């Protein structure tokens, strides 16, 4: 049982990393908290569900469609964020909170409040190893999440573009001085974030139930991981995602499934209560 919890925690954690990366990237580069993040993930999941169920597309082909949909919404969102005045972080929270309500209700209108699952039969079958049960869904989640994290790592740390992005995250003014197009980097961050959201959505839809109000939980996960990691540290995000995944998976075993929803909140609050300086040091300049 413990090894199963360990493996499912790592698998879940890797997926959380994928979910949080888009949020962290947008926040790091543009200083905008996008509270509509979870709603966008759910929306991408619904797009994929719809194409798969109603138009009978193969599941794999729904990924580009979901990416396209989130890309369009995120670019629109960026235009709105650009109009905000100081203090940017707080205003972006209020604006994106409004956006989250808007997207949530649009989904309620289009897709109704019913629970939906992209049910792929092979994903729910599993591997029975001694002392360990692994479903193919978990393996897929782990594999796809890790490969996307690897691609993003190469982009951020091995290319010139990644260097420019990291420079913008570290110091906007200095980056602009060095000739980096900071506004362009903002757009790029929103595009990359949208791609990550678009890829996470369908994966969420085939492993979790989709319903309009579930986005709130996803946003909370993304916020927790991003703040835990600090700004602009990919390694920190990976560590935070795994800790959260493991904590949730062990909380289910120790206290029962109904306490799982509290794990992310308690982790975030403990962090903010005892280590706010590390966060505030970078947050309020």
């Amino acid at each position: 049982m413990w090894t199963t919890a360990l493996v499912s925690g790592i698998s879940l954690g890797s997926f959380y990393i994928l979910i949080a990366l888009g949020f962290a990237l947008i926040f790091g580069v543009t200083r905008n908290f996008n509270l509509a993040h979870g709603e966008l993930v759910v929306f991408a999941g619904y797009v994929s569900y719809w194409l798969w169920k109603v138009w009978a597309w193969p599941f794999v082909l729904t990924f580009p469609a979901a990416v396209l949909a989130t890309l369009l919404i995120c670019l629109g969102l960026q235009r709105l964020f650009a109009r905000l005045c100081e203090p940017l972080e707080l205003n972006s929270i209020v604006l994106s909170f409004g956006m989250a309500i808007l997207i949530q209700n649009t989904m309620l209108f289009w897709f109704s409040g019913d629970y939906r699952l992209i049910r792929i039969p092979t994903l729910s079958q599993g591997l029975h190893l001694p002392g360990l049960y692994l479903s193919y869904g978990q393996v897929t989640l782990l594999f796809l999440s890790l490969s996307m994290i690897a691609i993003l790592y190469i982009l951020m740390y091995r290319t010139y573009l990644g260097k420019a992005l990291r420079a913008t995250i570290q110091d906007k003014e200095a980056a602009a001085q060095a000739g980096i197009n900071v506004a362009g980097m903002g757009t790029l961050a929103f595009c990359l974030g949208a791609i990550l959201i678009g890829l996470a959505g369908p994966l969420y839809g085939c492993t979790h139930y989709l319903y309009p109000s579930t986005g709130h939980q996803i946003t909370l996960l993304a916020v927790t991981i991003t703040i835990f990691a600090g700004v602009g540290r990919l390694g920190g995000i990976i560590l935070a995602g795994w800790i959260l995944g493991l904590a949730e998976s062990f909380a289910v075993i120790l206290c029962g499934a109904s306490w799982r929803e509290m794990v992310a909140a308690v982790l975030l609050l403990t962090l903010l209560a005892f280590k706010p300086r590390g966060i505030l040091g970078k947050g309020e300049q």
Partner: protein
Amino acid sequence: MSFFASKNTKLNTRGLKFDSVGLVTGLVLLIILPALVKSNNYILQVFTHALLLANLALAWNILGVSGSISLGHAAFFGAGAYCSAVLSLEYGLSSWLTIPLAGLLAAGLGLIMNLICLRLRGAYFALATLAFVEIPRVITDNWDELTHGSLGLVSLPGLPSLSLGTWSVDFSASIMASYYFVFAFSLVLLGLVRFLFNSNLGLAFQAIREEEIAAEAVGISANRYRLLSLLLSAFFTGVSGACYAHLVRYIEPGLVYGLHFSAIPMIFAICGGRFTILGPAMAALIIYPLDQFVFHPLLPAGHEFLYGVVLILTVLFLPAGFWGSLRKIF
């Protein structure tokens, strides 16, 4: 003009005059409303609810005026609702007693929130409050013996009755009586907020909002005043939650701790104008009936998109809120 550091919203005499006109018109309309709508139960019910939400927005704004944005007032609302419901249902206490006790419990929760968020400002405070709601919600959800978990509590006792000598009124007897009960609560809260805003305490709240370091320099302890505004805000949100429980007579964790009750007071306060006294209540009394009478029949699923749109438009185009902007014009 920037949204959160307001320079132009100081109380000026012209604005005060405009406020008084708005206040008197609003109060007269609200008092004669039952006569106007010929005791149409549905309309009265919507306006009772709108008044309750106005109270929530007013209570939220006690914290809002000291510069903090809370996305977690559902924690106080839900705790208040559950406290009053459990005390009156299990222990048979009168609602006259359980409603203030609910406020005290919510204020206690506010104290815990303050301990956690003591050093957080702005965006990080908002995110912490967003996460904070989960804690009382999950505890309520799992405390089956007391709260019946996610099943919720049903057939709660109604609003209390009042008897003075031979004259007595039962506030749960009719919708009109409930309406006037909530209205009386609104009046008390509005009077208190007005007194607070115009007193030294209100000035201290505004000072720590505008320039915390400068306020500290002239001897205003920012932490103490922020705690005070949070406690007052939590207390009245808890009381509103208790009123809601006795008004609707049915509560469940997903409902009273839902995002709805965190979002609604913030949206009304920001749309009405965070730095005005009347704005939040006005917004509640205009937007909620608009939602219920116009958008709900049109779009039964998803009618709450209105709140999102209103919030986005306000942040982008009317940073001072509609009442705050109107005050400046007149």
